[in-house]
C-alpha cells in the first residue's frame, strides 16, 4: 500500500508539474504572438477590406431555440454588423415561446421564394421567410431537431455565401468583428479554412440600443470568475495553440468557416453535444486524411459579446455539458492519437486534451485523495503538503494574472482601474471554492455522459440588454 501510494503521489506531482509547465509555455507563446498580431493591427486598414471588390460575402447563421428574450436585439445587432455583403440566416429551431412571433413583429417577415436544398439532413423545415424591411434577413422556421447542430445545418442549407459564421442568439458581434476576422482569411484564402474570434462576457456592460456603450466588469462573483476564465482560454489558450496550427476548438458563439469545407465535412453532427469542437475535429481529420495544406486560425481582436450564466446552477449545467461535449468528441476520435498522418494534432493537441482537459477532473480527485491518504498514513510531510498546496495556488493565480496582463497590454477593454483591480483580486479567489465546484461539475458531466444522459438543458437567460445592464447584477 505505501508503495502504491508513493507511486500515485509521484505521478500526480509529475502530472501537475507538466500541466503547469504547459500553461506557462502557452502564456509565453501567447504574449509573443499577440505582440506580433498587435503590430500587424497597426497597419490594418479595415476600410480597404470593406471597399475591396474581392471581399467575399458571408452568411451569419444564428440558431434560436426559445430565445424570445434576446432574439430581437440579437438580430438587430447582427444586421448592424459592418460588412459589405452580408446575409443573416436566423433558424427558429422549433421554439415553443414567441421567438418567431417576435421576429415577425419586428422585421415584417414574408414567405421567401428561395432555393432551399436539404444538402445536410435536418429536422423538417416548416417555412422560410425573408424580411420585407431588410432583405438580407432570412428566417428558417423548422421543427425542433433537439440540438443546436441541427439548427445550424438548416441555416447552412439556406446560406448562399462562400463563408459562414455561426453566432449564438445570446451573443452580440461588435460592428467591425467580421471585417477584422476576415483579415486573417483574406491573407491566405486558399489555406485558411476557419477562423475563430474572441468571446467576451457581456454581463455587466452598459448597453444602449443594442450596442455596448461601456465595458464594465460585473459585480457578480460567478460572472467575474468566468471573465477570468474567458480571458485565460482565449488570450492564452487559443492564441497559444493557434500559433502552431493546433487549434482544436472554435467557439460556437463566434467562428467563420469556409462553407464548402463545412459541407464536405458533412456539416455539424446533429447528435453531437459539443458541436463546435466536433466540427473542428472533423475538419482537421478530413484535411489531414486528404493531405491538404490548411490552417485554422484564431484572431484575437474581433469580439463577440456573450451572456454567461449568472448563477452557479446554470453555470454548473453549462460546464457539465461542455465536459460531455469533450468526451463526445475525443472518444470517437481516439484513433487520431499518436498517428503520424495526423501530425501535431494527433501527437500534441489531442493528447493534451485527453490528459489535461478530459482526465483532469478524475486525476485531480484521485490526486487529492491519495495525498490526503498519504498524509493520514504519515507518509507525507505536513510541511511538504502545505508547500505543495501553496505552490499550486500561486502558480494558478500567476497564470490568471498573466491573462489579465495580456488583456491589459493588448486590447484593454476594461478601462476603469477598479475593474482591473477586481479582476486581479479574483485571480486569487478563484482557487477556493470555485475551482472545486468546477471540478465537481465536470465530473458530473462525465458521469451523465457515461449514463447516457445527453439531454439538452437550456441555460436560464435574461436577454442581452438585461444581462448587460448593471442593474441586473445587483
Amino acid at each position, binding site marked *: 500500500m505505501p508503495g502504491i501510494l508513493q507511486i500515485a503521489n509521484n505521478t500526480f506531482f509529475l502530472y501537475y508539474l507538466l500541466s503547469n509547465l504547459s500553461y506557462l509555455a502557452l502564456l509565453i507563446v501567447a504574449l509573443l504572438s499577440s505582440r506580433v498580431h498587435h503590430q500587424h493591427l497597426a497597419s490594418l486598414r479595415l476600410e480597404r477590406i470593406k471597399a475591396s471588390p*474581392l471581399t467575399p460575402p458571408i452568411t451569419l447563421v444564428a440558431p434560436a431555440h426559445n430565445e424570445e428574450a434576446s432574439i430581437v436585439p440579437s438580430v438587430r445587432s447582427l444586421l448592424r454588423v459592418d460588412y459589405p455583403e452580408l446575409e443573416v440566416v436566423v433558424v427558429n429551431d422549433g421554439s415553443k415561446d414567441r421567438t418567431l412571433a417576435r421576429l415577425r413583429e419586428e422585421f415584417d417577415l414574408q414567405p421567401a421564394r428561395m432555393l432551399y436544398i436539404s444538402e445536410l439532413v435536418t429536422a423538417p423545415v416548416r417555412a422560410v421567410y*425573408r424580411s420585407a424591411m431588410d432583405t438580407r434577413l432570412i428566417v428558417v422556421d423548422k421543427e425542433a431537431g433537439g440540438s443546436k447542430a441541427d439548427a445550424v445545418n438548416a441555416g447552412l442549407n439556406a446560406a448562399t455565401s462562400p463563408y459562414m459564421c455561426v453566432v449564438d442568439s445570446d451573443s452580440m458581434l461588435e460592428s467591425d468583428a467580421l471585417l477584422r476576422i476576415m483579415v486573417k482569411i483574406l491573407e491566405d484564402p486558399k489555406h485558411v479554412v476557419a477562423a475563430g474570434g474572441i468571446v467576451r462576457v457581456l454581463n455587466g456592460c452598459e448597453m444602449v440600443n443594442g450596442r455596448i456603450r461601456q465595458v464594465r466588469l460585473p459585480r457578480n462573483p460567478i460572472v467575474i470568475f468566468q471573465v477570468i476564465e474567458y480571458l485565460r482560454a482565449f488570450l492564452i489558450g487559443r492564441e497559444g495553440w493557434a500559433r502552431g496550427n493546433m487549434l482544436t476548438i472554435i467557439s460556437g458563439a463566434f467562428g467563420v468557416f469556409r462553407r464548402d469545407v463545412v459541407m464536405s465535412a458533412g456539416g455539424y453532427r446533429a447528435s453531437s453535444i459539443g458541436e463546435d469542437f466536433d466540427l473542428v475535429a472533423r475538419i482537421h481529420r478530413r484535411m489531414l486524411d486528404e493531405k491538404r495544406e490548411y490552417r485554422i486560425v484564431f484572431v484575437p481582436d474581433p469580439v463577440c459579446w456573450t451572456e454567461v450564466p449568472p448563477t452557479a446552477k446554470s453555470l454548473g449545467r453549462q460546464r457539465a455539458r461542455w465536459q460531455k461535449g469533450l468526451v463526445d468528441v475525443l472518444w470517437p476520435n481516439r484513433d487520431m492519437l499518436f498517428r503520424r498522418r495526423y501530425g501535431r494534432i494527433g501527437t500534441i493537441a489531442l493528447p493534451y486534451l485527453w490528459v489535461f482537459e478530459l482526465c483532469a477532473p478524475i486525476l485531480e480527485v484521485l490526486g487529492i485523495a491519495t495525498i490526503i491518504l498519504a498524509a493520514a498514513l504519515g507518509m507525507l510531510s505536513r510541511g511538504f503538503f502545505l508547500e505543495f498546496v501553496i505552490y499550486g495556488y500561486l502558480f494558478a493565480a500567476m497564470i490568471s494574472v*498573466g491573462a489579465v496582463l495580456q488583456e491589459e497590454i493588448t486590447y484593454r477593454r476594461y478601462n476603469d482601474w477598479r475593474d482591473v483591480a477586481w479582476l486581479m483580486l479574483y485571480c486569487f479567489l478563484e482557487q477556493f471554492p470555485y475551482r472545486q465546484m468546477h471540478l465537481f461539475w465536470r465530473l458530473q458531466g462525465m458521469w451523465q455522459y457515461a449514463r447516457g444522459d445527453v439531454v439538452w438543458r437550456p441555460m436560464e437567460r435574461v436577454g442581452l440588454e438585461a444581462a448587460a445592464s448593471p442593474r441586473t447584477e445587483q
Partner: protein
Amino acid sequence: MNSVYHWINASAAAFVVRAIIFSLAGIAVLIAAILARRKIRRRYFDRLADAEFYVRQHWDEIVAGEIPRDEWREVHGDAEAIITQSLDRMESADAKEGDKLLDFLRRTGLLDRILTETRHLRGWKREAALVRLGRTRAPEAVASLVAALDDPSPETRLAAVRGLARTGLRSAGEAMLDRVVAGDLALPGTSLMNALITCTRANPRVLLPYLHLARGPVRELLARVMAEVASVALGDDLLLLASDVLPEVRASVARALGHAEFGFAFPALAQLATDAEWYVRLRALTSLGQFRETRALPVLLRGVCDANRHVRQRAAEALARAPDPIGVLSDVLKTTDAYALQAMIAELDRTGDFDRMVEALESDTGRIARAEGQQLLRALEAGAEGLNTMMRLPGTRKIPDSV
C-alpha cells in the same frame, strides 16, 4: 520513469519551494507590469493632451512662423504635438494644403528630426519613427525607409513597409517590388500586400514587369495586388493577362474589365465567363452585369445555368437588373434549367421585384403577347411553387398570427 520518480523523491521539496518563489516573483512582476503600464500611459497621455491643447490654440501662428521656432522647438512635448498635428492634418488635406504642411515640416527642421530618429533610435521608437516618416509623404523619406527594409529585425522591416505604404509613392512601390521579386522581402500578414496596393493603385502598370518576372507564391501575392488595383489604364496588357496561368490574375482582369468600354471588354469577359475556375467566371459575370448591355445577355444566361451556386446567383443578380426583365425571364425559361429559374426567382424575391413582375405580367401592358405573358406567369408561379415543393413547404403558407 524510475529515475523521474527518484528525482521527485529526492528533490521535490526543494523544487516546490523554488516553484513557490518563482510563482510569487512571477505574480509580483505581472502585477507590477500592469500597474506600471497604467501609470506610464496615463502620464504620457496627460502630457500629450496638454501639449496638443497648446498647439491647437496656436496652430495658425506656429505654421505661419509668428511664434518663433525656438519657443517650441526645444520643448519636447510641444514639438511632438506639432509633428502629430501636422501629420494628422496632412491625412485629410488636399494636395495644396499637404504641400504647405510638408514645406512647414521642412522649414522648421521637423522632417530632419524624424529622419534622424529613423536612423539613430532603436526598437519600438525607431519603428514608430519609420511609420511617422512615411506619413510625411516626402519623397526624400523613401530612401531612409527603403534602407530600413534591410534591417535584420522583422518588426523594423514591417514598420518600414508600413511607412512606405503611407507615402503612397510609386518609387516606394517599386522599391518594395524589387525586393519582393528578388525574394528579399517577405512579411506575414496583409501589411505587405496593403502597402503594394496603396503604392501601385494610381499606376497599376508598375506591376506588370514584376508580374512577368515573379514565380510561385510571390506571383500569387502580386496577382492579388493586381486584383485590387487593375484598371482600364492597363489597356491591351489587360487582355494579355486574361489568358494568364494564374486564376487570381484572370480574376483580377475580369474585375478590371468591368470598368472598361463594353466593346473592348466584352470578348475577353465572354471568354473568362467560361473559365475553369468558378471565381473567375463569377468575376466575369459580375463585370458583364455592370454594363446592362443586351449583347451580354447570352453570356449571362449561360452563367445562370452554371454548375456553381455562387456563379448562378451572380448571373441572376445581373439578369434581374437587365433593361427588359420580362424578356430575360422568358429567355431563362427557354434554358429549361430548373436551377436557373429558381436562381432567378430567388433573386427577384430578394430584390423585392417578384410581385412587381407578377403584376406586370397580369396587367398585360402589350409589351409581350398575352398568351406568352400568361405562359410566363404560370412558369413563374410554378417555379416559385417548385421551390416550396422542393422544401416541402405549402405554397401559400402565411405566417401564423401567434406562435
